[in-house]
């Protein structure tokens, strides 16, 4: 079974991002970039499926500028077999990414597509679902457990009320939640080996996709700041303040 995994290059989750002073965009010059944490979980899941003998080949795809190759190489070091880089300097919105992925799904015919449920920059939580619509494939979103058997995949999903399990016919799309697995670290020899794995370079135009943005960001600003609070000395003072000052209990 062939598995296609999508990974996104994003600002590292430890970086506290701030708007630029003129509010035109976020200030992310020279900050650390990484694989989106949810995408890392997607790569790990694919590698585990390969280790279990369920997956035979893992193709990793990333979209964006030249530097996305770093994230593709990281995924190759973690165990993906080959890479596809959809290279463009254009702004890619989730619909455009889903369209490019859909073209690659048509070309590669994977049995399973695994991707993160959201990227921690845009926090959109859209791309997997949109790929589902465009390809007509079923979706198992926010997955905390994935089991492939008998031409189907059972996906346990983290939903507001608890957990829900759905059964999807293959091929299918899975988007990962945080508790699906704990990603491994790449070992040095694997990082060296990853350098020799093949990475194909294509453009959105090659895939026949118009990536023109549909939404425009007019402004970015910091969220409303909270007023500095106080430290209370003990529980009695806390209860007194909550009763008489804040009047919330």
């Amino acid at each position, binding site marked *: 079974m062939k598995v296609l995994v999508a990974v996104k290059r994003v600002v590292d989750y430890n970086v506290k991002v701030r708007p630029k002073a003129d509010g035109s965009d*976020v200030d992310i010059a020279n900050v650390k970039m990484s694989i989106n944490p949810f995408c890392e979980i997607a790569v790990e899941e694919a590698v585990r499926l390969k280790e279990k003998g369920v997956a035979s080949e893992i193709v990793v795809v990333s979209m964006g500028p030249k530097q996305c190759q770093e994230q593709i190489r990281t995924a190759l070091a973690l165990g993906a077999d080959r890479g596809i880089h959809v290279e463009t300097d254009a702004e890619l919105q989730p619909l455009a990414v889903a369209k490019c992925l859909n073209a690659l799904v048509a070309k590669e015919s994977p049995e399973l597509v695994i991707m993160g449920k959201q990227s921690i920059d845009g926090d959109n939580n859209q791309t997997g679902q949109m790929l589902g619509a465009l390809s007509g494939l*079923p979706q198992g979103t926010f997955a905390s457990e994935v089991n492939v058997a008998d031409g189907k995949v059972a996906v346990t999903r983290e939903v507001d009320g608890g957990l829900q399990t759905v059964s999807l016919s293959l091929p299918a799309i899975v988007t990962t939640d945080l508790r699906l697995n704990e990603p491994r670290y790449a070992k040095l020899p694997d990082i060296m080996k990853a350098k020799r794995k093949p990475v194909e370079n294509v453009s959105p135009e090659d895939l026949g996709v118009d990536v023109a943005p549909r939404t425009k960001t007019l402004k*970015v600003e910091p969220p409303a700041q909270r007023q500095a609070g106080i430290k209370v000395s003990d529980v009695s003072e806390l209860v007194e303040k909550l009763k008489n000052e804040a009047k919330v209990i």
Partner: protein
Amino acid sequence: MSILVIAEHDNASLKGATLNTVTAAQSIGGDIDVLVAGAGCGAAAEAAAKISGVNKVLVADNAAYGHQLAENVAPLIAEIGKAYTHILAPATTTGKNIMPRAAALLDVQPISDIISVESADTFKRPVYAGNVIATVQSADVTKVITVRGTAFDAAAGEGGSAAVEAVDTAHDSGVSSFVGEELAKSDRPELTAAKVVISGGRGMQNGENFEMLYKIADKLGAAVGASRAAVDAGFVPNDMQVGQTGKIVAPELYIAVGISGAIQHLAGMKDSKVIVAINKDEEAPIFQVADYGLVADLFEAVPELDGKL
């Protein structure tokens, strides 16, 4: 302008988030219809017809929609929704699962998790775990939107008398099926709607110690939440997680116990009216957002608090 609101419900009753979404629709302005898709969902449809400000309720009652499978519900929303200028749903796991799929069928770039309506085509939404608020304008003919419940008041659930109309089209993709669910049962209020929330983190050490928080919660009529670390460690189930990738809460009072205050946790609770933090580390970042901080060992402070309430 004409707006279609997708109701969140369990066939028997409407979920509160639907009411907040109706308020968001009202701030856009125009006729508001509500779509109730489900199986045996007549009661939910009747409840929707009572929401004040709703023009018409469309009911798609079919076995295929029973468990809100995105493969079946999204084509229904796309088919009905294309007659509207806006399609809105709550930004719950159900809304997030279905709406992008419906949007792509309409060739629309959806807008997730809006916190304000600036105009009919312009909305504010948090990005980067809420560290940045973006103002976004959509050029699509139909606006497909999910709404953050805590950012909009609930519309009145009584007083309306909308017409109820049946929708006959059934979409059954046949590629997905519902297997089962494990839903948390609790007599406490729902996290996202509670007036008081008390949450525990890794500092709680285990699931048994959460009993201390449940006791206080029952005194205050509060819901109990948790950090990701507490959920990952198996202290409590996933539906209790508050944060960037968990639930977004904005109660009158939020009490964080043994939680350090990582940005991903703050993303889910920093719009609470009053924040209390109990943590033994006075440098913990949670104190930067706390109105009242208590530097103390939680195993002493929490039982004492319980005694004094």
